């Protein structure tokens, strides 16, 4: 009997000592004694390498002390001992500081398993996916978020954008159509659907939705640009001028609007006005090749072939120097779990 009690006591002793040290560590940390808290957590972990509280709290402490590289293995060990929302979320934050995007995502995916309806977590996860160009995954997590909170307009808009980035036009269109129905007073929703329709070549309905967006939010430049641009593409040069000018009044450095306006002016025979518009655009958006490309066309029509050629060369150089200005980011697959 006595022997058995002694064995139990012996087994419990390291644990209770490790618990005690872990608690002392926490108390020391609360009193601002960083070195003391670290020492006690280290002792607790030395006594019990699988002591969750010591591993987790020491990891958090190191993370907060900007010692993320040292924190990472402790948090990993804590998560292995006692997986849960909190430890995985903090692991994700720590990885984010270390700019280890894929590990951040994996940690937050693990956290999400414990709180599958955590909207905030889904949103930060979607941002991380998006920044990594994992657009299919961005869209998927936003779809899940929409299932949790179907009344959130912003989630719809983010999901539409994600599907567009992923090149999944049909999905984007389906969501845009839903968004228009759910949020009839939202200029963004009207615009997104109009944008999809113009991409599909459905000009008349696209113009209608873009017009609604313009009416709902006269300070939102994109519907004005796309409306004017659609008219330009329909060779309706004169009606295109006003919406394009409005887009530029809201955002003067909006180069695509300047280029569309210049195209309309060019086709109305107002070549000098078109050139002036493009010169202004080139000043306000100096990395963009588009105004120079359009200038090249106008100078050519003016019979000024050398100027046209020079403008083209500038557009080629700018495109080469600033590829991101004119190139959409390509989606990539999220790497398989190692």
């Amino acid at each position, binding site marked *: 009997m006595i022997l058995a009690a002694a064995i139990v006591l012996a087994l419990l002793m390291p644990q209770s000592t490790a618990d005690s040290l872990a608690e002392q560590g926490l108390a020391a940390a609360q009193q601002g004694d960083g070195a003391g808290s670290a020492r006690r957590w280290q002792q607790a972990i030395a006594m019990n390498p699988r002591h969750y509280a010591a591993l987790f709290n020491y990891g958090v402490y190191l993370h907060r002390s900007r010692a993320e590289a040292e924190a990472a293995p402790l948090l990993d060990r804590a998560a292995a001992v006692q997986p849960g929302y909190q430890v995985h979320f903090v692991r994700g934050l720590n990885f984010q500081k270390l700019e280890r995007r894929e590990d951040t995502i994996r940690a937050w995916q693990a956290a999400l398993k414990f709180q599958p309806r955590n909207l905030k977590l889904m949103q930060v996860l979607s941002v991380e996916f998006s920044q990594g160009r*994992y*657009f*299919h995954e961005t869209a998927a997590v936003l779809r899940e978020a929409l299932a949790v909170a179907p009344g959130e307009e912003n989630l719809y808009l983010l999901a539409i954008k994600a599907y567009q980035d*992923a*090149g*999944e*036009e*049909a999905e984007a269109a389906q969501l845009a159509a839903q968004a228009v129905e759910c949020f009839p007073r939202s200029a963004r929703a009207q615009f997104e659907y109009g944008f999809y329709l113009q*991409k*599909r*070549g*459905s*000009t008349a309905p696209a113009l209608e939705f873009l017009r609604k967006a313009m009416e709902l939010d006269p300070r939102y430049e994109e519907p004005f640009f796309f409306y004017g641009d*659609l008219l*330009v*593409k*329909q*060779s309706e040069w004169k009606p295109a001028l006003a919406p394009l000018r409005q887009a530029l009044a809201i955002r003067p450095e909006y180069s*695509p609007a300047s*280029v*569309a306006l210049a*195209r309309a002016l060019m*086709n109305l025979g107002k070549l000098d006005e078109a050139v002036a518009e493009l010169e202004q655009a080139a000043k306000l958006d100096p990395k963009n*090749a*588009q105004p120079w*490309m*359009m200038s*090249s*066309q106008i*100078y*050519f*029509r003016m019979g000024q*072939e050398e100027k*046209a*050629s020079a403008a*083209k060369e500038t*557009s*080629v150089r700018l*495109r080469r120097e600033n590829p991101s200005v*004119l190139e959409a980011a*390509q*989606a*990539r*697959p*999220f790497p398989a779990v190692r």
Partner: protein
Amino acid sequence: MNFWKQGLVSVPDTSYQQFDPATTPPPGKASNCEWKGMPVFCGPRGLPFGSATLYHQRADATFEDVTKAPGIGTVQGFYAFTPVAADLNGDGWVDIYFASNSTPSMLFRNQKNGTFREIGTETGVALNEHGFEQGGNGVGVGDYNRDGLLDIVKTNFSGDHPNLYRNTGGGIFEDAVLSAGLAINPQFVGWGVALVDLDNDGWQDIFQVNGHVYLELDKAGRSETYTQPRLVYRNLGGGKFEDVSAMAGAGLAARHSSRGAVFADFDNDGDIDVAVMNMGEPPSLLRNGLAAGSTARWIKVTLEGVTSNRSAIGALVTIEAGGARQTLPRLGQSSFLSQNELRLHFGLGAAEAVDSVTVRWPSGATEVFAGCAAGATLVLKEGSGRR
């Protein structure tokens, strides 16, 4: 193609890109080896550019590479697929248009002095209207709006529309794809294409074959598929087209990953048929069933050069019939890696005869020939017409 009016033929040629399997990363192992999140073969971006070459025929019928001399070789950095040689600015000299992928397409204007100058951006046929490079694949040349100027139709990669470059005069183009009603099928990767009168109504329609480049798509369960149907757009006149693919029969609906398309009246029944090359499958021969039930008339024109090259490649033929004027170029190659029949086919609609035929020969001479009743093939020899 005859660029210098010497009666000899020159051949523009392209290599798309340089590909070395030893240095090219495997699928998914570099940013240019992914597509919409799916590991795929690399390129074209990230791989070394291809080149354009111009071969000029010598008097002894051999060819020499004259790329450097005419200025084509001065332009670098492109992935060009299809070169088409035609007089695109109407000055009587043959120019060359290259449809390029992921780089600006190029228009080399014949400078009439043995050189070319690249003016694709200046004339509006290099990039889309927002300055974005496109995935240009195939090219057709014709006169869809019957204004006597040569227009261009270019097929592109999926997620984009084709281009319908309307010639506004002097070889300056406006992309009329949206107003023409052609921007409705962005889901397809377009290849072989032509402006060709399929229903003999006197207006050039558009036939386009499609097919994706990534076999992996079918396994990935995406909405896009490797095999895709063909498209026919009927020219309604007034610059508008209508997608009639769904009404055009099983040959159109059949899904293949097609590339080349050759347009010819294979069965000599008075309408244009189409031979299509498919990836990994036998080709398709699509017979146009129009003739059996159609009252629309037609003529064909074949040319024999004397001062010009014998095939009269580079000639421009204009007919007057039923109060309308139609123009077709005699092309060396177009569509995508394809050569159409050299006989030029004109639908006449209800017109019973052609009033006159005007030929601008590659030599520069223009001759007018008397017309004929519909249903005939006119054989016109250079020098036998009225100058």
